[in-house]
């Protein structure tokens, strides 16, 4: 079990370093096992530096940088053993447009590599425009949800309307 965790750590760490670079367009990141020599007892520390900045603990990064780094970590674990479906609920909320752009490009690349079907819940107009299709959820009758197909052009109206 200890060896399996170390192997998993190895794989995930390599994925993480690569995915971070793709999401940040450079920079570097790595995982570290801390607080114990025994991997089954250790803690997971995340060190990262966006391009042009110093390597430091993730806790010193900005809100959006932390979210993008944590997303890279979740994807790193996912890519170690890709599931047939992946659902992301508003992970792009704190990201600016440039980061959302790279996030969506990475989603397309992962979808091609793994054949995983992705479901992305979002309020971000830019994310909507990068999807293959959109479903809208509405409550025309109060308290009752309905699912409808959405024209990619009508998307922004739906997200804004009541």
């Amino acid at each position, binding site marked *: 079990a200890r060896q399996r965790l170390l192997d*998993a750590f190895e794989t995930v760490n390599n994925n993480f370093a690569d995915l971070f670079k793709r999401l940040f367009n450079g920079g570097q990141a790595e995982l570290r096992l801390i607080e114990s020599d025994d991997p089954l007892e250790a803690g997971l520390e995340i060190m990262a530096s966006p391009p042009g900045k110093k390597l430091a603990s993730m806790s010193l990064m900005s809100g959006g940088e932390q979210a993008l780094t944590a997303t890279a970590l979740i994807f790193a674990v996912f890519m170690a053993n890709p599931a047939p479906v992946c*659902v992301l609920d508003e992970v792009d909320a704190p990201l600016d447009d440039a980061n959302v752009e790279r996030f969506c490009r990475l989603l397309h690349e992962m*979808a091609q590599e793994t054949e995983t079907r992705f479901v992305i*819940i979002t309020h971000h107009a830019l994310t909507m425009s990068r999807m293959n299709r959109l*479903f809208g959820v509405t409550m025309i*009758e109060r*308290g*009752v949800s309905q699912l409808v197909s959405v024209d990619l052009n009508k998307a922004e109206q*739906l*997200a804004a309307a009541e």
Partner: protein
Amino acid sequence: VKFTNVRLVGFKSFVEPTDFEIREGLTGIVGPNGCGKSNLLEALRWVMGATSAKALRGDGMEAVIFAGTSMRPSRNWAEVILSLDNSDRSAPAEYNEHDTLEISRRIIRKEEGTQSVYRINQKEVRAKDVQLLFADASSGANSPALVRQGQISELISAKPQNRRRLLEEAA
């Protein structure tokens, strides 16, 4: 296996039978605050055997049954049916002869409490059987592939010890 459809009947705000198709590539889900988007993800995790009250909002399994509005009465049962395409025959042995797998979970409010009934291709099974089915596909209700709203923030503020558990999912 490929996930193809999630059907919700009386699950939270989806009181009317609703088919949520899961198609190839990237599908976006949009809509105003509170309209039901996260309820879709919860329905998927619920039918896959999610049991942790913390990860499913609500103080108990009953919280998933449509609670009624000023215009509609509450219900006393809820069901979610997940359809899988097994044409690549990658399902576990005992279900692998079928082209389609249908996993359903129904909860019924009775006087003595609520009861969840699980079925795979109409045959009643235990919660454990459903959880194991997805564990084989490395895609259980708690898999890293299903990222709940706020889970990214939780990961950022988590103690290093708790973060390590994420690795254990991959091991």
